[in-house]
């Protein structure tokens, strides 16, 4: 066997494992969310399927697969079928640039624990996160339903409100790490995580990624109280499931990104790096669930107000302050 075949085999194994891990984690995040929300509301949550209800995701999967796959008569069939994939795939793709552990050495081969070490990893993330909203917008448009359309439009309006502050809140990180590569950003936090230098940028990023994964208090495109289910009103069966799982993959990926940018990635004492990465990511996931159980939904003008008039100027000021501080320090 030549060296390159071993490399390819290792890469394929890594790819498969990451894919499997993310999908399983996303499925169990749905379960965890239902349990935690139940606890918040003094209930028990799903605990019937298997021990402690741990097989619930499987039951959900069977249910979704056996539901009728309904396409409205007046819908644009191609786009309608395409939209769920467009929502879920970018979310999975983003994970390819996140380093989730220290590089391993297996049989003399250096295996970096990330899929692709892009030198513009951060830009890759920003680009893909903008593409993900096409799934929402197209899904809303193609369904040929008022509620879906409103949801899709709200999704777009939401995107332009938070995307800017999200990008700007990452500029100080790039300034500190002097690189767009996520590996370099993690390496730059070997001693001190960036959250200590950049608490403001962290908070802005946290608020922005909540809007990015369309969760309460920013679940405006879904807004089940106003829009039935927003952009995925007309979806059923596994197509709906794809939107749904995409949302949870998004939570994991964005939690991983927040870990990478601000909490020092896989760096941590005692425990294995991969475990540290997992813990930090799940803390974010828990926080998202906790937030869902706590906060009410914002109106979309309030979201725009928050994004344009508060977060964006603050992020800009933060960049200026960081630049000034870096110059003064050097």
């Amino acid at each position, binding site marked *: 066997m030549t060296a390159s075949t071993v490399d390819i085999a290792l890469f394929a194994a890594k790819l498969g494992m990451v894919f499997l891990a993310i999908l399983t984690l996303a499925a169990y995040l749905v379960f965890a969310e239902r349990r*935690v929300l139940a606890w918040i509301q*003094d209930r*028990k949550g799903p605990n019937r399927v298997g021990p402690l209800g741990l097989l619930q995701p499987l039951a959900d999967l069977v249910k979704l697969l056996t539901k009728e796959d309904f396409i409205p008569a007046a819908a644009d069939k191609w786009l309608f079928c395409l939209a769920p994939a467009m929502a879920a795939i970018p979310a999975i793709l983003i994970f390819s640039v996140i380093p989730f552990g220290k590089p391993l050495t297996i049989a003399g081969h250096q295996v970096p624990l990330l899929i692709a070490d892009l030198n513009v990893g951060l830009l890759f993330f920003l680009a893909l996160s903008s593409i993900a909203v096409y799934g929402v917008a197209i899904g809303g448009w193609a369904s040929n339903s008022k509620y879906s359309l409103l949801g899709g439009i709200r999704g777009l309006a939401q995107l332009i409100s938070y995307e800017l502050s999200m990008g700007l809140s990452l500029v100080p990180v790039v300034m500190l790490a002097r690189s767009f590569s996520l590996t370099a950003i993690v390496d730059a936090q070997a001693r001190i995580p960036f959250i200590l230098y950049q608490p403001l940028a962290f908070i802005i990023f946290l608020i922005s990624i909540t809007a990015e994964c369309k969760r309460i208090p920013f679940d405006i495109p879904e807004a089940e109280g106003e829009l039935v289910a927003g952009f995925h009103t007309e979806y059923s069966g596994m197509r709906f499931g794809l939107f749904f799982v995409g949302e949870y993959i998004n939570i994991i990926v964005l939690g991983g990104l927040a870990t990478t940018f601000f909490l020092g990635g896989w760096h941590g004492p005692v425990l294995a790096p991969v475990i540290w990465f997992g813990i930090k990511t799940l803390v974010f996931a828990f926080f998202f669930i906790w937030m869902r*159980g706590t906060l009410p939904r914002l109106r979309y003008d309030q979201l725009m107000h928050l994004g344009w008039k508060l977060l964006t100027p603050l992020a800009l000021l933060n960049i200026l302050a960081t630049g000034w501080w870096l110059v003064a320090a050097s």
Partner: protein
Amino acid sequence: MSVFDDIKGIATGFGVTLRHMLRRPVTIQYPEQKRVPYPRFRARIVLTRDPDGDERCVACYLCSAACPVDCISMQAAQRADGRRYAAWFRINFSRCIFCGLCAEACPTLAIQMTPDYEICKRNIMDLVYEKEDLLIDGCGKDSSYNFYKHSGIGVTQPRGAGLEEKPPVDVRSLMP
């Protein structure tokens, strides 16, 4: 400042939800865990008998009239001694809302509510209870009450033998 008030408000909310997360759930896991209802819980309806073992119901239709969803029906009949009874008596539990108005209306304490709340059926027709299904052998909540001892003059006992009755007076003997 209002921003700090806002942040404080949000933080308080997170505190409240965290506290509830750690609290014991109030859920009762029904088929395994059953709550014991209070004795006066209003569920499955029964027809009781008086202390002498006779049916209490006199088929007066008052319960049927009081029922807001019209789920009680019956046919009155009369025994040779003049005592009334229901030839048939039917409660449709698929319509009953367990309001208890029938039990309140009943002058003979015949119709009573019991705390047995587990009367779900697969087949809705099984929820139509006939008199045989409703009639129990006991007195229910009041073990001493017997309508005919207080009322129903001359039906089950000679005149004047009732509890609040005085013996009849021969009016011709009432001289000024």
